[in-house]
């Protein structure tokens, strides 16, 4: 049986039977891949601590025809991102990014840009002051890579330029006042949001952690992006809910320090 070799990031692990794990990876060449890691739950397993969510490594696997799961031969750690795991906000933020990849990136289809974006975000997360700006830029770029980038220079329906726009998830972009009046899901969107969205779309992956975002603008953008993602996915994004809860619970605590 031929062995394949690929870079990969662990997105999710689920315990399977007594000692095994089912592990889902994001790979550049084959998108999402899930496989069985035999004995991975054992303390002295050959996988050690490597098969942990967010770990970047080199995956060696075999793939039998007609089987959905790959067989994991080994996984060598390239970066464990230990710093992220030891900060609650960073850890929750990156688990959210992993959930987005779990839900949106198709199985067994090349996704080199999604992979580069996730890896870029993980690499920069430890150094950012506030993960929120990075999350918004990530969401914007991720949507773009999946083919959901909204039209930002004119109304998506009539093609006309307008002085002010709303955002419609269903239409997937900005709508002018007269087109928007006939739609039910239009959220108001400020010039600042449109400007940031444009700027964020064009950022190089190695710079996504270097841009700041003020709180008010972040709030507005977060709501629009989240509604858009929910619309596209058709279900709750659980890690987002968790992240928002942490912000509410510890946000005031942090400010007091």
């Amino acid at each position, binding site marked *: 049986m031929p062995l394949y070799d690929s870079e990969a990031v662990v997105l999710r692990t689920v315990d399977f039977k007594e000692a095994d794990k089912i592990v889902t990876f994001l790979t550049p060449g084959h998108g999402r891949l899930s496989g069985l890691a035999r004995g991975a739950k054992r303390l002295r397993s050959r996988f050690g601590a490597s098969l942990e*969510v967010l770990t970047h490594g080199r995956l060696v696997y075999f793939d039998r025809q007609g089987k959905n799961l790959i067989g994991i031969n080994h996984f060598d750690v390239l970066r464990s991102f230990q710093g992220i795991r030891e900060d609650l906000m960073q*850890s929750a933020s990156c688990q959210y990014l992993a959930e987005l990849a779990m839900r949106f990136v198709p199985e067994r289809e090349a996704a080199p840009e999604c992979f580069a974006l996730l890896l870029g975000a993980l690499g920069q997360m430890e150094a950012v002051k506030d993960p929120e700006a990075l999350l918004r830029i990530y969401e914007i770029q991720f949507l773009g890579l999946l083919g959901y980038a909204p039209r930002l220079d004119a109304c998506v329906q009539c093609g006309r330029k307008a002085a002010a726009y709303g955002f419609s998830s269903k239409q997937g972009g900005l709508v002018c006042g007269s087109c928007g009046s006939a739609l039910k899901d239009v959220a108001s969107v400020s010039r600042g949001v449109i400007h940031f969205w444009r700027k964020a779309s064009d950022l190089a992956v190695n710079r996504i952690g270097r841009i700041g975002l003020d709180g008010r603008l972040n709030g507005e953008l977060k709501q629009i992006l989240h509604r858009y993602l929910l619309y596209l996915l058709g279900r709750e994004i659980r*890690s987002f809910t968790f992240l928002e809860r942490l912000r509410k619970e510890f946000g005031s605590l942090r400010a007091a320090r």
Partner: protein
Amino acid sequence: MEASSLQRVIEELKRLPGIGTKTAQRLAFFIMKMPTEQALGLSRAIEELKEKIRFCSVCGNLSESECCDICSNPNRNPRLICVVQEAMDVMAIEKTGQFRGRYHVLHGALSPIDAIGPDELNIKTLMQRIQQEPIEEIILATNPTIEGEATAMYLAQLVPSRSSCTVSRIAHGIPVGGHLEYADEVTLAKAMEGRRRL
């Protein structure tokens, strides 16, 4: 052929983790050939387990009464609480015979993608305990997985906001009897970080 009672045992055994059809068949045949007294002993033990065992109302550990043996033992140090994910972890730590404090069992760890948040864990009772009991130190002994670490960090932020307890985390590192050259880099780094003076 009338094999339905045997088939029923096989089906019930297959519900257990790690047991497939073949193993279930082997076990069922084994039970069938067992002396009657032993087989009934097994079935009675399971019955008793389900009738008597419940969760301790104080710490969440397995117990045969409202309050478990450890919580009701006056010789256990009430100022020291070790927080673990599962009741199995209590058993593991008890086997060492080294810990003289009390426990708190969370029944899981924070896992946002599985919709396990703070409300799904036994955290509310822990917060009541730190206000009502003379606790001085909380030892976080959750697993060194991303879920276990997140749970530990969550509690490390929550506890000091509600009390003056000290919060500590168990050390992680090389298993005793293990070899350095076989340890993965994360484990090695953690072991280095958790070093102590001799």
